[in-house]
Each structure stands twice: as C-alpha cells, then as structure tokens.
C-alpha cells in the first residue's frame, strides 16, 4: 500500500481550514471509492486524505418550493432509495439505480462522482439535464457554478485545490429520464449514457429542454444542437428524426477498451431518442431502467 495521511474533518469549517492549510497536498475523500483505486494504481501518492464522510451538514436530500438540494456527501444509495427523487427527478433516480453495485453505492457520494469528473460519471448527465448548480465553498467564500460550466475535461473541473462542494441544487422535473448502455449489467462503466428533461405547454409544444450525454467526449456534455432541434416543437416523428440527426454535432467520441468511436456515434442518437421520448411520456420502449 502506498503512503497516505488521513485526517477526519468533523465539520465543514474544519474541512475548509484543512484544505486551506494543506492545499496541493489535500485530497478530499467521502466514501474513498475513487481515491483508493487511484492510490493503489500509483496515480495518487503521499497525499493527505481529508475524510468528510461523517459531516452531517453535507448529507441529505431536501425539497422546498420546487427546488431540490442534495448535499455533496449524500450517498448514491440514498439517492437510489429516495421516493422524492423517484417522483420529482426520475432521471437522477434511475442513474443512481444503475450506478456500479449496491455496496459501492453505500459509500460513493454524488459530490465525489462529479468532483472526480470521469467522462463516464453516471450522475453527470442527469445533473446536466436537470440544469443543476453546484454550490462550492472555500475558507471565507462561497460560489455557485452551473453544471454545464463545471467540467473542464477528463478528471478536470473548475474546483480549486482549496474548494469543497457543499451541495447540488436543481428544479424538480418529473418529465426526465436516463438511459445507460454498458457492456454488461454488473459494475459496468458506461459505453454511452444519455439523460433528458423536458417541459411542455398545454398544447404539447416543448418550452424547455435539456439533453446530456456521458462517455462521448472528454467530459459529460450538454447536447445543445439536439436541444435546438426540438425546442418549441411538438414531439412528433419529424422532430424526433431531426433530434437524432443533430446529436452527431454534439459529440466527439473516441475508441477505447469498451467501444469504438463508430459504435458510440451509432448508438448515441438512438439512446437520446429513447430518453427524450421517455421524458415526453410518449415512448413505448421503457428500456433497461428501474
């Protein structure tokens, strides 16, 4: 085992003070499911792990006036079991229920999943589709960053070394859905994921839409071209055909061990169609979701 120090932070104030003091050397851990893998692989050496698992203020799912706030330390299990999210943000609920395996879900947190910024992070497309905001703190200040500005590249985010994610906030949207293509069910890192949320007026015209994809670019991405293709329209056959055509402009997939770029280009429009239709409540194909 490589060397690492471990300090448990009892509360947010202590965690921020430790981050301020340790700076470059600090490495925040909650469930440590990312950290331990990187330490064992020799990617993370001689760092001071700051344990924030037990900070109660970072944990929990709150709903007030249409807004949902999820503490950064909330585990994927809590999200996967939340009847509130099942109803008010099914896109995130469905992603949590396909995340790794039940044991990892007990440790892994939503804050950790986005801070790690894997292009395949399962909670990222749902949060992008919900137009979430990330609430970030450092010693003496706080800021909010829109989810679409949060990721910079593979394992890169806007987070500074002394910053901590406090929470993730978004407006509830029951008309939202998630779909994941993996190589198998168990422990599968995604080949492509897609998430969508829509709002319609009483005539069925789409007044608001957000579509996001994972594992098709160096970071989880919003599909702005696809969104443009459907905004203001009715979710009919022509709109869906335009949507599928537009998706290719939003993605830049690569060949990797899990799939070829070509395959990803082929399936991305198909699963975007599925999540869009499901979010609109018109798709007969339920897909592999809970």
């Amino acid at each position, binding site marked *: 085992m490589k060397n*690492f120090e*471990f300090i448990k932070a009892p509360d947010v104030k202590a965690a921020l003070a430790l981050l301020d003091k340790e700076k470059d050397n600090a490495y925040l851990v909650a469930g440590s499911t990312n950290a331990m893998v990187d330490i064992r692989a020799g990617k993370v050496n001689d760092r001071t792990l700051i344990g924030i698992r037990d900070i109660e203020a970072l944990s929990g799912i709150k709903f007030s006036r249409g807004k949902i706030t999820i503490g950064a330390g909330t585990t994927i299990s809590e999200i996967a079991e939340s009847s509130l999210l099942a109803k008010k943000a099914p896109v995130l609920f469905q992603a949590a229920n396909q995340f790794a395996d039940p044991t990892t879900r007990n440790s892994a947190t939503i804050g950790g999943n986005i801070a790690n910024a894997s292009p395949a992070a399962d909670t990222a497309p749902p949060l992008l589709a919900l137009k979430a905001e990330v609430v970030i703190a450092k010693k003496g200040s706080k800021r909010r960053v829109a989810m679409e500005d949060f990721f910079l590249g593979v394992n890169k985010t806007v987070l500074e070394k002394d910053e901590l994610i406090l929470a993730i906030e978004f407006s509830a949207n029951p008309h939202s859905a998630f779909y994941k293509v993996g190589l198998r*069910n168990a422990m599968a890192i995604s080949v492509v994921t897609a998430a969508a949320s829509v709002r319609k007026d009483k005539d069925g015209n789409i007044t608001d839409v957000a579509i996001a994809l994972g594992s098709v670019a160096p970071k989880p991405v919003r599909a702005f071209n696809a969104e443009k293709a459907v905004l203001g329209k009715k979710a009919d056959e022509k709109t869906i055909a335009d949507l599928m055509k537009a998706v290719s402009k939003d993605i830049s997939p690569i060949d990797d061990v899990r799939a070829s770029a070509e395959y990803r280009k082929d399936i991305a429009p198909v699963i975007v169609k599925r999540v869009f239709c499901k979010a609109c409540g018109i798709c007969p194909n339920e897909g592999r979701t809970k």
Partner: protein
Amino acid sequence: MSKHDITLNVNGKKYELTVNSNELLLNVLRDKLFLTGSKYGCGIAECGACTILKDDESYFACMVPAVAADGWNITTVEGLADGDKLNPVQQAFIDNSAIQCGFCVPGMVVTSTALLRENPDPDEDFVKDYLRGNFCRCTGYVAMVKSVLDAASKMKEAK
C-alpha cells in the same frame, strides 16, 4: 506516518487499536484481529470478496481507511452465525451446493445477508442485480442466486 487510536465493534466485540493512517480496514480485520474470512481479492472495489457489514449495510473493507472506520459497528462473515447455528444464507449456500472454490463465498454471503435485511422477499432479478458487485470465477452464480431465494423463503416460513 501518523498513528491513530480507534475503536471498532466487530461481531459484537469491542476492540481498541492503534493504526497507521494508511492501514485499510480489511488489513486490520485480517492481520490484527485474525478475522481472515473477509478476503483480499482485487483491492479496487471490483470483486466483492472483502464485503463486510456496517450496521445493516454492505461495504468493501478494501476501500475504507481503518481511521475512517473509527466507531463503526461491523459484522464480518465470522459474525453471521449464532453460535453453531448458521444464518439462513450460510445454511442455504450449503443446502444448494453453492460453494466451489469458496474464495468469493464470504463476500457473497455477507452481501446476500444485507440484501435480505433490505428486502426480505426478493425475486430472482432483484438478487441478480444486488449481487452484481460480487464476482465468482468458478462460476456458481446459478446456485448462489437459488440459495438466496431459498434463504428468503425459509426465513418467511420461520416467521
């Protein structure tokens, strides 16, 4: 390397230990408490052989720095039986011949125990989905899934 005093409650027994900051819970259980039922398989949360319970929830002991487990109430595979009486999952694994080489079985049994505490009446799909983080390379999944369903029905009968 700093040292830390921690308390672990393992299988109903309280242990006061001094651990290095880079020690993992799995190593403490195996090398200090000699509870070698939990296995070191992959070390990267892929295989499930090190699964333990914290209260009623499953955790991979290879992912947890021992310091982070200070105060935890832990059950390892050694703590599942009540004296000589095996827990329903353990008994069902024997009754259904679900053990081949046996390396994955402690993790399988512990995860299955967490499964039945969460959902005492699972169907086959639920069991398969729940055990997705536990790998058996022999491979005896069919008998294992059957065992968990068997344990569930025996527990229901016993009520």
